[in-house]
């Protein structure tokens, strides 16, 4: 993604003090939340610890073992699942997986295992954590090696989705997409998976408008993409969703199976899935710690605000949210080049001069987060069954993407209003991007913004409103801001929503060697 930065964003005459102010407010907003995070854990966080300890698989009823064990720990969860697990390991001499198996068969009740010497338990846990992190590092080095050998495509990277519901069909279509020029392949999740409080197991062949995110499915797709990467001589990146009630668990699976990007937003689950705010904000921290270590690029979800809110009126909420997501990410140890802040081309196509406003927005995001690989989402909301006009909306979107130097371009589909992409739709979308971007290469360097023009003014206004909003949020606190519906016009109570029951206060001697190890990796979380 290390291209000469597009020149148009650099033309924006932004008020530097305002930018610093906004960033400082966002830092304070995140800090307050993180104080809360540090005092709590969640069922999903603890299941993540178990997964990192190597526990996987399901019991006779198909319940994932991490869920089974965490349920058994019940009220004791505040001590950390790792404590119970390694206590049992110490006591029985079995390895974690064997302990889990015994629990599944009812041969062991973790609460009743005689407690081993704390020092011993911690030692075992830390050893396991070192091993886990080493495994993650190994996959990351694998990626670095492949990218080193195969190289990166020019930006924007072309990102397409597959969503057949059947991982084996997904693979066929992903290969076709890569051969047609796609750089990044995302497997969309089956509708509603985000609200499952467990991760489905094994390869799956039925899903609704998406394919279940399972570790086996991750592996199947990774193998296929590694294969086609060799064939096309480009490293093809794989994406899934570290989002919903199992956010950190999926991040872990993504780390183990060498996914390259994770859709992961500090607030998406709260706003769009009515997941409990505390649950989501606690989970996002750990999931980002994992992604930071795994070398994932996270993709934030601000684009979604514009599906419920008006893209022109609410443009500043996207910027404000990006500042917040940036701070949460940095606090979790993610480097700027790992933070794919999201936004979208969603203004009313009937708006006269709308393209100027879209350019202003895209240039503003680029200018505010120069180190980040910005994720640019396509027009969707105003698409209709008129596939011909939809194709044109995507053409202007692609033009703005290349003109303003976006990093990751999620390609729009002519059939957006109709169905998840057909294999032929993906061809048309890739051709659209290739044609427009190749034909317009360099335009962003050739054209400059006229000083004092409408584009510059619009960008300045949006920044001002975003900074104002951040000031308010800092004053109120993020919890209150969510209750007042500052984002996407949605109000969420800090105690309401799904998965609240999974939030647990950490005991004084809470034990989570994996988190410790990951935090060793840096960041100020």
């Amino acid at each position: 993604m290390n291209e000469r930065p597009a020149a148009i964003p650099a033309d924006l005459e932004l008020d530097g003090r305002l930018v610093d102010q906004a960033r400082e407010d966002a830092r304070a907003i995140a800090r307050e939340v993180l104080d809360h995070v540090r005092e709590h854990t969640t069922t999903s966080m603890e299941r993540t610890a178990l997964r990192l300890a190597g526990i996987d698989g399901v019991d006779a009823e198909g319940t994932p073992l991490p869920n089974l064990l965490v349920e058994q720990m019940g009220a004791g969860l505040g001590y950390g699942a790792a404590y119970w697990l390694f206590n049992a390991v110490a006591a029985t001499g079995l390895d974690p997986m064997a302990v889990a198996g015994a629990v599944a068969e009812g041969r062991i009740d973790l609460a009743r295992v005689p407690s081993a010497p704390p020092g011993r338990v911690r030692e075992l846990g830390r050893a396991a954590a070192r091993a886990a992190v080493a495994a993650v590092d190994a996959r990351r080095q694998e990626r670095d090696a492949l990218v080193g050998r195969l190289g990166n495509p020019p930006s924007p990277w072309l990102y397409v989705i597959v969503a057949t519901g059947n991982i084996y069909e997904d693979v066929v279509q992903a290969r076709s997409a890569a051969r047609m020029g796609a750089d990044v392949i995302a497997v969309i999740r089956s509708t509603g998976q985000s609200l499952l409080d467990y991760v489905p197991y094994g390869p799956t062949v039925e899903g609704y408008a998406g394919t279940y995110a399972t570790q086996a499915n991750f592996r199947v797709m990774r193998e296929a993409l590694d294969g086609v990467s060799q064939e096309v001589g480009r490293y093809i990146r794989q994406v899934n969703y570290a989002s919903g009630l199992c956010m950190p668990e999926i991040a872990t699976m993504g780390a183990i199976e060498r996914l390259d990007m994770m859709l992961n937003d500090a607030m998406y689950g709260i706003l769009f899935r009515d997941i409990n705010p505390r649950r989501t904000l606690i989970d996002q921290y750990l999931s980002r710690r994992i992604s930071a270590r795994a070398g994932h690029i996270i993709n934030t979800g601000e684009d979604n605000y514009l599906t419920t809110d008006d893209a022109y009126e609410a443009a500043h909420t996207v910027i404000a949210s990006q500042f917040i997501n940036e701070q949460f990410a940095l606090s979790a140890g993610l480097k700027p080049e790992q933070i794919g802040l999201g936004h979208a081309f969603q203004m009313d196509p009937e708006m006269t001069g709308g393209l100027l406003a879209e350019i202003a927005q895209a240039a503003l995001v680029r200018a505010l987060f120069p180190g980040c690989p910005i994720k640019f989402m396509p027009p969707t909301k105003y698409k209709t069954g008129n596939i011909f006009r939809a194709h044109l909306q995507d053409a202007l979107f692609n033009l703005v993407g290349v003109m303003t130097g976006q990093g990751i371009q999620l390609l729009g589909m002519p059939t957006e209003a109709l169905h998840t992409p057909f294999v032929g739709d993906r061809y048309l979308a890739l051709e659209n991007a290739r044609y427009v971007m190749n034909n317009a290469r360099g335009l962003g360097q050739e054209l400059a913004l006229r000083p004092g023009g409408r584009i510059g003014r619009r960008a300045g206004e949006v920044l001002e409103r975003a900074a104002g909003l951040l000031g308010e949020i800092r004053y109120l606190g993020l919890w209150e801001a969510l209750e007042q519906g500052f984002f996407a016009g949605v109000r969420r109570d800090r105690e309401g929503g799904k998965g609240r029951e999974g939030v647990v206060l950490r005991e004084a001697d809470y034990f989570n060697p994996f988190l410790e190890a990951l935090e060793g990796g840096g960041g100020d979380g």
Partner: protein
Amino acid sequence: MVEVEGVRPYGDRRDDGAVQVSFTLPVPDGERAREAARMLMRQMGLEEPQVVFARDLGGDFTFVVGYGRCRHAVDLAAVRVARVNAEVMDFKAVNRFARERLGRKVVVVGACTGSDAHTLGLDAILSMKGFAGDYGLERYPEFRVVNLGSQVPNETLAGRAVEEGADAILVSQVVTMRDVHLTNLSRLAEMLEAEGVRDRVVLVCGGPRITHELAVELGYDAGFGPGTGASMVASFIVQELDRRRQVRRAGQEG
């Protein structure tokens, strides 16, 4: 071409039958894929089928654009259109109608059912703001609205409808892949039947792929597609309630 009575597609002259098609065949590009495409077009009744463009989609597929002359024709006189039977009234008229004919607040319970989280469509009908300048039902003084929001199980919706003594149930289904919407919608209808509440409520559904015809097939009283405004829905509900009231009255008298 075979001369059939009726309307035919029009390219640049009456009855030239010009039709454009595009599709993908799970076959690598090459003369065989193109010929196969032409054969398919012939089977569709497209004469002089031409493959004007074909592209290999990475080995396993061929995307094809074709043109042909449609042999079929439609007798316009024979075209039957299923319409929601209610005359559309505006905000004021609906409320007046409700006050005068029903004499009480109309209670509606709405939800996006199953795993569907697309609330914009339902909100367009229910929320104060409404859609394209057409206020939502919440703003109607003669309506009481309970919007359960997204991803609501059919059970929950049915339950709340009974609790609230709903006059009408409004269901939104936007996700249609693998026909989930059909399954969801018919399940709800059956459930209400089973619980014996079906004929106590006006059952309405909507979504981008919903037509009134389809809704009726699924056992609903009405179905609304893209571009629906709240006033259309409100008009149908109050008129339907009034119709039922009259039927009941007639029943009692007779």
